[in-house]
């Protein structure tokens, strides 16, 4: 008997409407575990590097981890995996809420969609099976409305994940939203557009049966051992949510301000956790199996933004719609957050696109005829709200921005590439590599484009220590030496959070990596030790990298925009600081066993059990040599 896993993955061919069940054990679970690790194996094997992400050939996968449905803390998360329309390469998004947990209780480890439906549909999943239902009446609805309507048609207790109009309109940073008004987002990489391209509006699921656990008593004892520590350390996060970090980030010079051009800003105080508690906070929200509860519930009763009543803005959103655009009106940011969640837009990329547009407009690169007869202004919430609507509808300037800042800069020109803040086509999250240098190499090498959570390296430059990885105390945040190695180690560790589908806030609040192996072993009956488990993390990271190499990415794509590498801020907690990316990258490639082109070497791939991928790289190198020797370029 397989413990932890339900043993079944739903496979839905949207073109034909055929639904089948595939044994989860069809794949090597000890090698790839679950979540995004398992997704990497499936995407690599089934989606050709040449596939257009928005064509039916792409897969769209929703995958839980082996701990989902068990009492393991924060295990209710799920991964969404597809070839990304933002990067044209590996795409994954990680999301909390209740949907993944409920899918597991319904008896499935995941759902794989292939093909494309001829018209809008949604999928309804219970323990009795799954059925596709017409969704023409839902097309055009926002994610909150869709959640309510689908629940009314299925079950009040169902968990729903859905796209909004942005996904339908193939915005390249469209998100997939779960849990209606609580609004948990699979935001990064434009996977909502993949869902829209398949005419899949929503997936509803209902379930109530916990998976089998091999050693329940040991699992519970392990959780009881560490839970008090995490709970105590996370008191501030529970009390104020991620908004608590706004003022700290500003003090460090970490908070991006005015499209990453300013180092300090008094307005941060107005977006803080204190301000939220004082002005709009009405309650708190926790994802399934989470005892931290960082989610906020907010309400705006009066003024121009009255009517907001939903999950409150996270740190990332307070920065992207707030400091990045110089908007310090918390109620306006809460409104933009709710609007963005309803429309199904990634708040990080949306805010980044808007800040980019404001700067380009201020520099005269966008005709005023496209911006209402005047230049877009910093600090104007109306600009943010109007552009969100235009982006989701692909209307006017919004159509240009809907492709992300890389494409917009390419179209606008005039040197705007220097302040289009992205990597591989994905906009930066809201932490500044000039303040925490490891973020430079973390963003440059993240397989899904700029991402801080796939390394969480910045934690080791602030408060965290991880003796199990060789870091007894936090590192100097402005140092560059050692950061390439540290970031690679952290990426391997965070791959495990992506495969097990656990929340990174466990790590920043005292969870030691050895507990990951313990919980996995107690649930599945396996016998991983931490080094073997970290090797699994390294394996999936490399598999994603090889997929990206096959998609045409290489060292030349491991780059940061000029503003981050050449323009230090003149004030604030990181004034004068610039990360030396090349120093870190060289160290990073060496530690990873990659060549100078950023390609994993066959030898390292074989060490990780990726023999077929090693042969692919050898053939690729052989073909390149042959082309060079015959001069066929």
């Amino acid at each position, binding site marked *: 008997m397989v413990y932890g896993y339900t043993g079944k993955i739903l496979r839905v061919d949207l073109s034909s409407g055929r639904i089948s069940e595939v044994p989860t054990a069809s794949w090597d679970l000890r090698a790839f575990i679950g979540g995004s690790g398992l997704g990497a194996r499936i995407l690599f094997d089934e989606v050709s590097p040449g596939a257009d992400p928005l064509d039916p050939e792409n897969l769209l996968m929703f995958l839980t981890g082996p701990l989902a449905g068990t009492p393991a803390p924060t295990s209710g998360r799920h991964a969404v995996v597809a070839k990304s329309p933002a990067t044209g390469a590996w795409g994954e998004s990680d999301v909390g809420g209740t949907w993944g947990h409920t899918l597991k209780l319904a008896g499935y480890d995941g759902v794989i969609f292939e093909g494309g439906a001829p018209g809008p549909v949604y999928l309804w999943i219970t323990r009795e099976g799954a059925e596709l239902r017409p969704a023409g009446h839902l097309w055009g609805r926002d994610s909150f409305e869709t959640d309510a309507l689908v629940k009314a048609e299925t079950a009040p207790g169902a968990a729903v994940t859905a796209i909004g109009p942005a996904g339908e309109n193939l915005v390249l940073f469209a998100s997939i939203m779960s849990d209606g008004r609580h609004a948990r987002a699979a935001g990064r990489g434009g996977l909502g557009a993949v869902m829209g391209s398949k005419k899949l509006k929503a997936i509803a699921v209902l379930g109530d049966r916990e998976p089998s656990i091999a050693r329940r008593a040991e699992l519970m004892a392990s959780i009881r051992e560490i839970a008090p520590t995490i709970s105590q350390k996370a008191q501030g996060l529970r009390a104020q949510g991620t908004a608590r970090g706004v003022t*700290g980030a500003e003090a460090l010079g970490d908070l991006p301000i005015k499209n990453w051009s300013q180092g300090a800003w008094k307005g941060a105080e107005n977006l803080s956790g204190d301000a939220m508690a004082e002005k709009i906070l009405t309650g708190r929200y926790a994802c399934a199996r989470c005892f931290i509860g960082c989610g906020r519930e907010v309400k705006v009763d009066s003024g121009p933004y009255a009517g907001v009543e939903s999950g409150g803005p996270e740190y990332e959103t307070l920065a992207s719609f707030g400091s990045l655009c110089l908007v310090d009106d918390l109620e306006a940011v809460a409104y933009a957050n709710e609007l963005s969640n309803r429309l199904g837009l990634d708040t990080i990329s949306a805010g980044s696109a808007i800040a980019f547009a404001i700067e380009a407009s201020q520099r005269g690169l966008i005709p005023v005829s496209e911006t209402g007869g005047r230049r877009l202004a910093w600090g104007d919430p109306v600009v943010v709200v109007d552009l969100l609507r235009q982006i989701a509808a692909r209307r006017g300037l919004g159509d240009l921005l809907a492709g992300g800042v890389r494409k917009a800069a390419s179209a606008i020109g005039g040197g705007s590439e220097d302040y289009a803040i992205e990597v591989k086509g994905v906009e930066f999250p809201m932490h500044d590599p000039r303040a925490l240098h490891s973020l430079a190499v973390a963003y440059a090498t993240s397989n899904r484009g700029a991402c801080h959570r796939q390394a969480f390296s910045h934690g080791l430059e602030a408060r965290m220590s991880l003796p199990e990885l060789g870091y007894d105390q936090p590192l100097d945040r402005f140092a560059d030496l050692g950061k390439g190695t540290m970031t690679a180690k952290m990426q391997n560790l965070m791959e495990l959070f992506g495969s097990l589908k656990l929340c990174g806030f466990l790590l920043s609040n005292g969870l030691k990596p050895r507990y990951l192996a313990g919980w996995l072993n107690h649930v599945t009956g396996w016998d991983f030790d931490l080094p073997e488990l970290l090797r699994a993390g390294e394996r999936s990271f490399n598999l994603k990298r090889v997929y990206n190499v096959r998609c045409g990415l290489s060292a030349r794509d491991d780059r940061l925009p000029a503003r981050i590498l050449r323009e230090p801020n003149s004030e604030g*907690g990181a004034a004068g600081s610039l990360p030396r990316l090349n120093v870190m990258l060289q160290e990073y490639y060496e530690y990873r066993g990659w060549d100078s082109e950023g390609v994993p070497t066959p030898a390292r791939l074989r060490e990780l059990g990726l023999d077929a991928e090693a042969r692919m790289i050898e053939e690729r190198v052989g073909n390149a040599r042959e082309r060079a020797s015959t001069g066929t370029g």
Partner: protein
Amino acid sequence: MTETPAMVRVYFGGHLRTLAGTEKAEISWSSGSAGDLLDLLVGKFPRLGEDVLKGPKGLEDARFLVLVNRIVACWDHPVEPGDEVRIVPPFEGG
């Protein structure tokens, strides 16, 4: 000629400002660690203690960051007279 007394300048950010009841303070200081300074500050501004975790062995953790001359400091980080110390909320990511 009178000698300038040895001091460190401490700034409080975010909700720590509320807990301390002030934005900045000048503290007489000869030498010691960040942990020693924190003990002194908690004595002077007792509400700061609400965000400090103490165990049987003394200071274990704090739910804020201590920056000494902009560097994130561990508890044994030396603090010298003339240093600038900032007590700020942690950043949470997310």
